């Protein structure tokens, strides 16, 4: 004797309203997918096009050579080494202050109005337009502190501008260390500072380094803050010279060089222009890729 099914199969068939909902769902998914893809395309298109136009000039020699014929030909060495100087000095200033500030915010600060004010100040420091940082650098370092238009003024301006990058990422790295690690250390009688040195910093050092790498990328690409504090259109430097600038010299910088070449100098060889853009872009993106690779490696290694 065959058993009668409890419910006819037809009951499970899709009704119109279900079909409508599923159509809306797949339409929505497709729309959002297109929007997400719309971000990838410009990145690939831009990088691809710039590299394609830059190819005739791109070479190691382009990097090491000095600009020739009123910057219309030749290489970018003085600008490249200038960027290294600015980034190096700004990093030396911003990294210790930024890391210590993050330690304060994450390890010491209780939730008082004063500490909320600090967090707000960090957010605002990140939000101040780069040209206002330039005005600040001009008023504070060039004039008030009498550093003049110099590598030092420009680096200090960059340091203050990039401080929030280091604070934010260091804070995140410190916050990812489980509270239990600290409690275990306190329980054997260690002070707050001993705990930070022995437990918190060793467990977050890679995250902190990632933040510092990101600061480098940010500082290397900025133009406005250095335009009026120390970067100049042209400075005579010998080919391949590693120590062309003093702290109180003016210097060239890659980002400034790209701006000058593309807006102030007529009849520049196009491939030189594109190659300058590619070197700047490659420097910044390589630094970022390093930070990303570092983070992935770190996450795979993490045991908690």
């Amino acid at each position, binding site marked *: 004797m065959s058993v009668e099914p409890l419910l006819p199969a037809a009951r499970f068939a899709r009704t119109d309203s279900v079909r409508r909902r599923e159509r809306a769902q797949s339409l929505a998914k497709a729309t959002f997918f297109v929007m997400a893809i719309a971000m990838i395309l410009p990145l690939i298109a831009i990088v691809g096009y710039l590299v394609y136009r830059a190819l005739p000039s791109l070479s190691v020699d382009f990097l090491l050579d000095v600009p020739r014929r009123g910057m219309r030909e030749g290489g970018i060495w003085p600008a490249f080494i200038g960027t290294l100087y600015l980034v190096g000095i700004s990093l030396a200033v911003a990294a210790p202050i*930024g890391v*210590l500030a993050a330690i304060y915010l994450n390890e010491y600060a209780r939730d008082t109005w004063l500490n909320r004010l*600090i967090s707000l100040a960090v957010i605002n*420091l990140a939000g101040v337009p780069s040209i206002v940082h330039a005005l600040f650098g001009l008023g504070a370092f060039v004039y008030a502190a009498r550093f003049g238009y110099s590598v030092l003024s420009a680096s200090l301006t960059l340091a203050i501008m990039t401080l929030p990058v280091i604070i934010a990422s260091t804070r995140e790295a410190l916050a990812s260390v489980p509270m239990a690690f600290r409690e275990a250390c306190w329980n054997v009688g260690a002070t707050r500072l001993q705990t930070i040195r022995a437990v918190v910093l060793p467990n977050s050092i890679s995250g902190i380094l990632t933040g510092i790498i990101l600061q480098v990328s940010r500082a290397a690409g900025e*133009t406005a803050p250095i335009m009026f504090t120390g970067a100049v259109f042209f400075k005579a430097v010998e080919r391949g010279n590693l120590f062309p600038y003093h702290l109180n010299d003016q210097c060239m910088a890659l980002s400034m060089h790209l701006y000058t070449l*593309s*807006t102030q100098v007529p009849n520049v060889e196009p491939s030189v222009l594109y190659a300058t853009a590619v070197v*700047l872009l490659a420097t910044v993106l390589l630094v970022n890729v390093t930070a990303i690779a570092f983070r992935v490696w770190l996450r795979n290694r993490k045991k908690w």
Partner: protein
Amino acid sequence: MTVLAIDPRGTAPKNSNGVAAVTRRRRSAAAIALERLAEAIIRASGFSAIFFVLAIFFFVFREAAPVLLKESFKPMEFLFSTQWYPTSDVNVRYGTLALTIGSISVTALAMVIAVPFGLGAAIYISEFSGPREKEILKIVIELLAAIPSVVWGFIGLTVMSRIIVSLTGAPVGVNLLNGGIILALMSIPIIVSIGEDALKAVPDSYREAAEALGATRWQIVYRVLLPAGKNGLLAAVLLGVGRAVGETMAVLMATGHAVKVPHSVLDSVRTLTANIAAELGEAAAGSDHYRVLFMTGVLLFLITFAVNLTADLAIRGVRRR
């Protein structure tokens, strides 16, 4: 004789019963002083952020302030006149309204493009994509955010301007539309990453409850997630606005150089930020023109401060819940 585990090497002083005496080793006064000093330095670094924000305002305002006392400077004219003739011999005018409108129009155009794409991408990454896909998209966003503004400006000046000229037949390619598109591309990453954070902050129990009622993903997104995450999404948009208003190099290179109120998207404009960058090099230090440019900087500082403060309050509202 028992040796307590607290003294594994057997070197601690013993009492008469042969039991290791547990004495608290006192830290030297020098060690304590050193620790106090280190903590003071850490605290000072923490407060440095407040110090720097105040210093920025102080030094920018200090350079701008003397012009407030000059008869030729009228605050109402500064804010509400469209006439900007800073270097004229007979008819000097410092009206920034055209520049403010320039900033607002470029930012508005950028947001019209960036908000739907940015929020759409944030929703896709947060709700629809698989783990691998999510990883790749987030890396792309990070790289997109890392492209320096001067490179964006260069792209606007060379590539985008040619595309615009050939598509619209406009006489010049560096204009409001160009700047808007470039700024949109620049602010999308920040909208996506903050927006995704906002959606992630919506508790999973909300999603599960909706799913249990038989809702599809899309229904969950627009009936549950958008209302629940609206403060965070608002903050994402505001931070995008902040980035667009404050951007300098890209708009300097991509929007052209006309100080006038734009009538169409194909008109050239100049923004508050670009104006400072373009004219500061020519203004003699200490001149009225120089000080008015610093006053523009004060204005920009206050605008972005307000935008960021609002965004922060919106995010805080999310966290409190």
